């Protein structure tokens, strides 16, 4: 399918700018999101690291317990039985470490000193268990900041034995600082963790274990203060999946069936987002990971991104988990992007419309030009009219086309006029059906049919029945693309037969497809009739020549023989007369002489009979036009004159018709002209000219045949039979000719006095006017 220039311009201008806008939008859509997500991930990572560092920093003072244990051993405080000093040391340490909830020391004897923060009656409380030799006492002391005692009392029901506690056992067995799993402190109901370090004396003996309780609720507070987007959170899991720190601390404690507070596991915490974020990773009880993991998840229709990372470079088997809704980071840009897409669409539509308008504007001159071309082709506008405003290229093309159109119109008009005004009949014929498509008036005249009648007819309709194969031949010629040129018989409208010379060629269009055959038609009927007449004359002449030859020979022989026969009879008569004069009659001699006479007469009778037989063929005399006969005779000898390059001129004034046997006279004319041709052809004459002259002279018409040939040998009697100047002649021609002319009432002779050329003359009897035909004279 071909697109119009307007459509192509519209598609190009509107389409291209749409593609440009979309590609820019799409590019920014993809790249900006990726950049933002990368940024968000690094932010998550940073937050995780921040949480880790904070936690480490938070727990760092607990490591001081080892130092404290070492000093206790060096100062032998533990070795003394002065728990007050130990209490005071622990008190001081508690005071300076706000994240500590309590410090304590237990020894192998089961003694125990525990300093902790208290809600009342004083801010600090000390629990001292002394166990010496089965004498056990437990004492509580509440103190102020300044170490003054607010209240003190004993508790005899207390059964606490530090040696039974896991932290004591662990530290003792590892002989190194240990961390417990986080747990909910029994006293404060707050989550915490305990670090314990063995106190080893200088002699390597284990004195006891010092422990620190650290409330880690502060970590949750820290986490709650971290801003991660609008809805992001950082939580910390223990290795078993317990949530030990959460922005909302209330969520991490749950009460079990025994009423004991425990950490909520990640699987059961009432934070569905957190559950969704880490659910995938909690396949077993151990949730520790070796390295940072980034992932993405969906929850409640929102997409979240998350990062899990281990507590690197630390003894704590914790996992930091950070998650945040994607929209918190790229929501804005998503909104912005949606806005941008709408703007881009709006721009695309506006620019598209502008493009269409521009395309229309660019295309308008072309469209106007096309509309004008349409009008020109319909003939409503002349191709020479002013052009609408358009491009120079189109103007040039238009100029060329207009020139072409003008030329074509001129040639069409010329063809039409040629067709119409041609002196010959012309027709356009369909090569397939043979129908007449177009005819001119000359063809109407030739065929007798009107143009309207002819246009309903086929070429084959006017063919003569005897020439019906003409049409097949015409078809063949036309389709084989050679020129058809035939003289054939056709039927005129009035039913008469006419001879037409039809010349036809096939016209093809520029693609080689046949359009029509153009035929030129000449009426050659007259010519054909004339040719037929000449052929008839020629045929008659050759027949006559044969018959006449016999007749003339017989006639000539008769004359030649009759002379001696006459002489014989006369001599016989003379002899008989002489015999009669004799005195003695000689009857035998008389009989011989009489028989001689009779035999001579018998010979003459035979000759007469022969001549009489031939004489029957002598023609009938008519009145005819000698001029026409001479012209026909000249055409008969035309091949010979052409062969010998001889010119023949016929000169005549207004001569009357003549009386005679037309064919015989034709024979004489042809005979004399042939003699003249042979006379010229046999010689070396420079001028090769024959003149035939006819003049009226006193009741006769004189005909001269003059040639520039070799002339006549005066020793030869021209008109005697069997005498000839020609090597191959019989010497009968002139003799016969003379006999013929004389038989027709004329004379034939050779003009001896005329020496310029060889001239033979003969005369014919003129016909009185209005006399059309004569029978035998």
């Amino acid at each position, binding site marked *: 399918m071909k697109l119009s220039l307007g459509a192509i311009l519209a598609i190009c201008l509107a389409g291209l700018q749409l593609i440009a806008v979309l590609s820019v939008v799409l590019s920014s859509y993809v790249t900006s999101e990726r950049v933002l997500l990368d940024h968000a991930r690094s932010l998550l990572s940073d937050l995780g690291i921040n949480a880790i560092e904070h936690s480490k920093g938070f727990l760092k003072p607990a490591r001081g317990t080892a130092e404290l244990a070492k000093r206790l051993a060096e100062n032998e405080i533990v070795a003394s039985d002065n728990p007050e000093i130990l209490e005071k040391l622990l008190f001081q340490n508690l005071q300076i470490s706000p994240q500590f909830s309590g410090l304590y020391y237990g020894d192998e004897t089961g003694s125990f000193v525990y300093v902790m923060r208290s809600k009342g009656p004083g801010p600090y409380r000390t629990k001292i268990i002394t166990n010496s030799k089965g004498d056990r006492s437990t004492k509580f002391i509440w103190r102020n900041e300044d170490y003054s005692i607010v209240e003190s009392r004993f508790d005899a029901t207390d059964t606490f034995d530090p040696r039974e506690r896991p932290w004591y056992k662990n530290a003792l067995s590892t002989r190194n600082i240990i961390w417990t799993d986080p747990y909910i402190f029994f006293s404060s109901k707050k989550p915490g963790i305990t670090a314990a370090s063995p106190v080893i004396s200088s002699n390597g003996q284990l004195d006891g274990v010092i422990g620190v309780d650290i409330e880690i609720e502060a970590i949750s507070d820290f986490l709650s203060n971290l801003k991660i987007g609008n809805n992001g959170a950082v939580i910390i899991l223990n290795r078993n999946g317990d949530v030990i720190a959460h922005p909302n601390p209330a969520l991490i404690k749950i009460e079990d069936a025994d009423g004991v507070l425990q950490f909520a596991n990640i699987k059961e915490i009432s934070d569905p987002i957190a559950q969704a974020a880490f659910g995938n990773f909690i396949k077993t009880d151990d949730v520790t990971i070796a390295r940072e993991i980034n992932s993405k998840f969906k929850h409640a229709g929102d997409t979240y991104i998350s990062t899990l990372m281990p507590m690197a470079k630390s003894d704590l088997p914790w996992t930091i988990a950070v998650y945040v809704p994607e929209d918190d980071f790229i929501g804005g840009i998503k909104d912005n992007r949606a806005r941008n897409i709408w703007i881009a669409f709006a721009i695309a539509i506006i620019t598209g419309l502008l493009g269409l308008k521009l395309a229309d504007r660019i295309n308008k001159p072309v469209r106007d030009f096309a509309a004008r071309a349409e009008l020109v082709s319909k003939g409503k506008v002349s191709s020479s009219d002013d052009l609408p405003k358009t491009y120079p290229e189109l103007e040039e093309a238009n100029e060329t086309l207009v020139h072409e159109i003008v030329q074509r119109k001129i040639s069409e008009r010329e063809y039409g006029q040629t067709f119409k005004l041609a002196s010959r009949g012309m027709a356009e014929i369909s090569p397939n059906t043979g129908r007449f498509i177009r005819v001119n008036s000359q063809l109407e005249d030739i065929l007798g049919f009107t143009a309207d009648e002819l246009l309903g007819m086929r070429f084959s309709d006017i063919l003569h029945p005897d020439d019906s194969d003409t049409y097949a031949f015409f078809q063949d010629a036309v389709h084989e693309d050679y020129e058809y040129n035939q003289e054939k018989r056709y039927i005129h409208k009035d039913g008469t037969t006419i001879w037409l010379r039809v010349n036809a060629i096939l016209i093809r269009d520029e693609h080689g497809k046949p359009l029509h055959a153009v035929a030129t038609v000449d009426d050659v009927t007259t010519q054909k009739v004339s040719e037929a007449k000449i052929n008839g004359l020629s045929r008659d002449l050759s027949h006559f020549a044969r018959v006449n030859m016999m007749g003339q020979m017989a006639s000539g022989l008769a*004359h030649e023989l009759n002379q001696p026969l006459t*002489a014989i*009879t*006369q001599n016989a*008569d003379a002899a008989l007369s002489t015999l009669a004069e004799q005195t003695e009659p000689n009857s035998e001699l008389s009989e011989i002489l009489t028989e001689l006479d009779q035999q001579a007469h018998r010979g003459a009778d035979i000759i*007469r009979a022969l001549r009489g037989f031939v004489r029957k063929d002598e023609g009938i005399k008519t009145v005819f036009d000698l001029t026409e006969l001479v012209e026909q005779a000249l055409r008969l000898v035309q091949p010979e004159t052409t062969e010998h390059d001889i010119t023949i001129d016929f000169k005549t004034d207004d001569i009357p018709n003549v009386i005679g046997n037309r064919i015989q006279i034709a024979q004489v004319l042809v005979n004399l002209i042939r003699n003249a041709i042979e006379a010229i052809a046999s010689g070396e004459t420079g001028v090769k000219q024959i003149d035939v002259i006819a003049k009226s002279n006193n009741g006769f018409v004189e005909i001269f045949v003059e040639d520039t040939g070799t002339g006549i040998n005066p020793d030869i009697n021209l008109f005697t039979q069997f005498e000839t100047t020609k090597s191959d002649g019989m010497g009968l021609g002139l003799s016969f000719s003379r006999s013929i002319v004389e038989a027709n009432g004329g004379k034939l002779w050779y003009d001896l006095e005329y020496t310029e050329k060889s001239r033979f003359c003969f005369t014919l009897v003129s016909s009185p006017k209005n006399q059309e035909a004569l029978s035998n004279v």
Partner: protein
Amino acid sequence: MSDANLTVFLVDDDEDIRSSLARALAKRGFEVETYVSAEAFLEDYDGEQSGCLLLDYGMPRMNGLELQNHMIKKGFSIPIIFITGHGGVPESVQAMKAGAIDFLEKPFRQKTLIDCINGAFEKAITAQQNEKKTRELHIKFARLTEREKEIAQLMVSNSSNTTSKDIGRQLNISPRTVDHHRARILEKMNIKSVTELVDISLRANLFS
């Protein structure tokens, strides 16, 4: 039956014909003169000699028919017999129309020729006698006075209306004078009636 005054004039271009025919006719007692051509004959013949002309039809230049025409034009009344080697019907008709005795084809029976010649001679003799009579009439007519010749012509030209009165009125003379001239004319011409005068004047062509 020959007459010393009658001659057969033979014109033929064939030497053999001339010699044999002349000899045979001479043997039969005819006076024969031969000529090689029509021209030669015309040169010699003056019209006074009587007899017949035995004429070959086909001769070069002037043929027999032309010679016949020439003779008629000259007023020569000698009878002509044509002889021809190849005589055709048209030529014979033309010759006969012009007054030929006969048109004989060569070779001819001698009897036929002799009969023709005798017929021609009879014609020649009759013609000779007529000529003699006419000459005599012309001589008698010549003796008439001019007035008598004038009156005779008027009598002949309008024989039904030639009373003396009429003639007198025409010539401004008296009828009596006319009667007188009439008697003189009949007497001088040796005739008896006006009717006879008309007859001889026509025959002898007196007023031509």
